[in-house]
């Protein structure tokens, strides 16, 4: 069994090659994939989120850590699936229709994934129908919407209304964020939660999941 502290360090420092190598060695020597995730990767990404929030880490460092984590997760996921392990929650995330600015959404998606969530990332400029389909067909229990522009913020309301129309709003929690979005706006459009930074978005998702209906 390799020294698993190296996995923690590799994720924290954004070293994908080392993260992948340690994971491969751990798997080969019978390491428990759930333990790798819960004891090393999730704490490492929590620390990345903390460093980001206190402005020790910035976007490049966060994305490098997320890339290291993903490299490792790709190896572990098939093993988890074979065991029937369930994620903390299933989040579908995207920027709303008309908004092509996705870096903030990518930070949130990475930290959610690092926090043990299964993340279905639809990318940018996502139509409400796609979010509805993710809830209906993939069992997402959180819908996370991002907008960078004031002119695309109304599409958050449109998306939430479409979720209601489709009859799936009660099954899920909706969280919103993005530079111009405010707590007040989130309440006005009927979102369940708002966060003004990526790290707090994970805390919010955990809180919402605790009260969400399981798929």
């Amino acid at each position: 069994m390799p020294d698993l502290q190296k996995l923690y360090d590799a994720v924290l420092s954004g070293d994908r090659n080392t993260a992948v190598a340690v994971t491969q060695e751990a798997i080969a020597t019978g390491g428990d994939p759930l333990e790798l995730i819960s004891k090393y990767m999730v704490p490492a990404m929590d620390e990345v989120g903390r460093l980001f929030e206190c402005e020790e880490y910035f976007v490049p460092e966060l994305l490098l850590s997320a890339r290291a984590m993903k490299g490792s997760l790709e190896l572990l996921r098939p093993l988890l699936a074979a065991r029937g392990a369930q994620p903390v929650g299933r989040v579908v995330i995207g920027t709303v229709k008309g908004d092509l600015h996705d870096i903030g959404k990518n930070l949130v998606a990475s930290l959610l994934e690092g926090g043990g969530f299964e993340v279905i990332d639809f990318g940018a400029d996502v139509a409400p129908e796609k979010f509805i389909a993710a809830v209906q067909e993939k069992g997402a229990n959180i819908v996370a919407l991002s907008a960078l522009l004031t002119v695309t913020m109304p599409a958050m309301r449109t998306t939430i209304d479409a979720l209601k129309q489709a009859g799936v709003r009660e099954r899920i929690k909706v969280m919103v964020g993005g530079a111009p979005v405010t707590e007040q706006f989130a309440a006005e459009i009927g979102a369940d939660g708002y966060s003004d930074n990526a790290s707090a978005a994970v805390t919010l998702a955990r809180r919402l999941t605790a009260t969400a209906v399981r798929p």
Partner: protein
Amino acid sequence: MTGKERILARLRGEPTDCLPLMPITMMFAGDLAGVEYKSYATDHRVLAESQLKVAERFGFDYISAISDPAREASDLGAAVEWFDNQPPAIIESQALLHEKQKLNGLALPDPHSPGRMQDRVRAVESLAEKAGRDLIVEGWVEGPCAMAADLRGLNTLMFDFADDAQFVEDLFDYAVRMEIAFARAQVEAGATLIGIGDAAASLVGPRLYNRFVLPYEKRLIAGIRAMGVLVRLHICGNTRRIVKGMGETGAEIIDLDYLTPLSEARAAMPEPQVLLGNIDPVRVLRDGTPESIEAALSECYAQAGRAYITGAGCEIPRGTPLENVEAIARFARERQ
């Protein structure tokens, strides 16, 4: 004093009759003129008319050819998504420099050839012809980090800093050479100030900013100042950890977004550095009242001291009530 005299006097540290007023307007100006934003961004005559209207209506001291970040990228052939009534956006999934090798041999675009850069040059020409005597006419270019992100894709560029430093340097060098030529065309068309937008620089933190971005911002700014015009540096987002570097760029006006308190900016950039800003465009300017706007601006002015120009942290948002924009104008006009 004319608006132009007021801004120039403030930059020289001389007395002014009141505070200079330079808020950014784009969609707000288009809406006020009753035009769709697509036509604002594609037709220099529409942009110029809208800018003249908004400046006249509120007594702004300048007019600007800023519209969207996609002009240079469009002319280079990048994929851009167009909307009827909001700014065009570069499609990152089809980034022009998705393959890094494409930078080798990528020709610089000619701002005088038909295209979106030429349309901006014509907008400057039109603004200068109609109001250049009394108002500062601002041309606009992308900063090195923003331009690199426009061509490479913002997400990918964030990895490049760690994966391929030489490529980042080459890309920034290309961006600076392109923007100096673009700025020159706008100066020749009558711009008296060049604004530089370098939003992506607020994402990278002080280590990468000082190592990669600052040297190229300095080079761009020195190149533009050598043309005998003024420079305004605007970096959207949280710049608290890079303000010291911003103060070393040589830009006459440092235009700050609302996330950076002017007290911190002033501590990092002592007078006579002129600071511009920086009330929250959404929560204070659009959603506030004339009273709350005045209070927020008073705080900005108190923190910045006399080397100050009135403005919001970023573009005045679409849908801002007219009386709120009047409040920002009244604040400037009633103070020296």
